[in-house]
């Protein structure tokens, strides 16, 4: 185990805040805090839904700037060069829309209500992520 980088308390508290944000969006707006849906549904016309979605995204971006100003160590660089970033972004964008959810919508909101569909999605994307890391790091070659 990697004891040097293990941060159980910060990760737990971060998780509590993410959960609080998700629960508040449900209680306040009656909407599931799935980042994939919030971003992806902007491509479709949905009267009355665009403004809160754009505001949520503005909050995510503003929050990123705020965290960076207070604690730059909360960020590091994404893995890979230009090609990997493009391929990875395309896979994540297309895949999450096809699966109708990502780490937040399926992994957090769906799993917390024990939706079989979300439990399956979470096992599959975690498994696929682990397999990809295994191939990249341990089978050899860089993508």
């Amino acid at each position, binding site marked *: 185990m990697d004891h040097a980088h293990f941060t159980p308390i910060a*990760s737990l508290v971060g998780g509590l805040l993410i959960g609080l944000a998700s629960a508040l969006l449900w209680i306040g707006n009656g909407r599931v805090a799935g*980042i994939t849906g919030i971003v992806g549904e902007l491509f479709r016309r949905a009267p009355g839904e665009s403004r809160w979605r754009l505001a949520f995204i503005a909050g995510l971006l503003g929050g990123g700037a705020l965290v960076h100003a207070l604690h730059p160590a909360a960020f590091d660089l994404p893995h890979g060069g230009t090609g990997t970033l493009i391929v990875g972004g*395309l896979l994540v964008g297309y895949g999450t829309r096809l699966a109708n959810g*990502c780490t937040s919508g399926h992994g957090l909101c769906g799993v917390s209500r024990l939706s079989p569909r979300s439990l399956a999605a979470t096992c599959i994307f975690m498994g696929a992520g682990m397999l990809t890391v295994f191939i990249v790091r341990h089978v050899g070659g860089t993508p």
Partner: protein
Amino acid sequence: MRPAVGFVCGLLFAVGLGLSGMSQPSKVLGFLDVAGGAWDPSLAFVMVGGIAVVALLRRFAPARPLCEPAGYPPLRRRGIDRDLVVGSTLFGAGWGLVGYCPGPALVSLGAAVPGALLFCAALLMGMAIFETSRRNSSR
């Protein structure tokens, strides 16, 4: 009022992601690298904390959302279909390649992390391709 709720929730979500370690791709890949001998299980704690709060607070949710007179939307009960399996597999592969899922990518874009803009542009392109393919197939 709904945009204000959306903004505050987005802000809180971003702070949570930043604190949790999800905005550090090296940490995400360290969590996904279960075979590396130096596994970092921190991100399991993010899931546990988040799931506990959502499950708990949903029990205390009011009969109607505070800012949505139409009530809660029905949560569709769909089965585990091919789209879910294929989509989650593709998503997991991209996540394991780069270390970003959609939320942390956007938060990193807000923090002006090099590479985040390119990733987010490709992510939006992937979503746009999905929309186009869906539109064509439904004709």
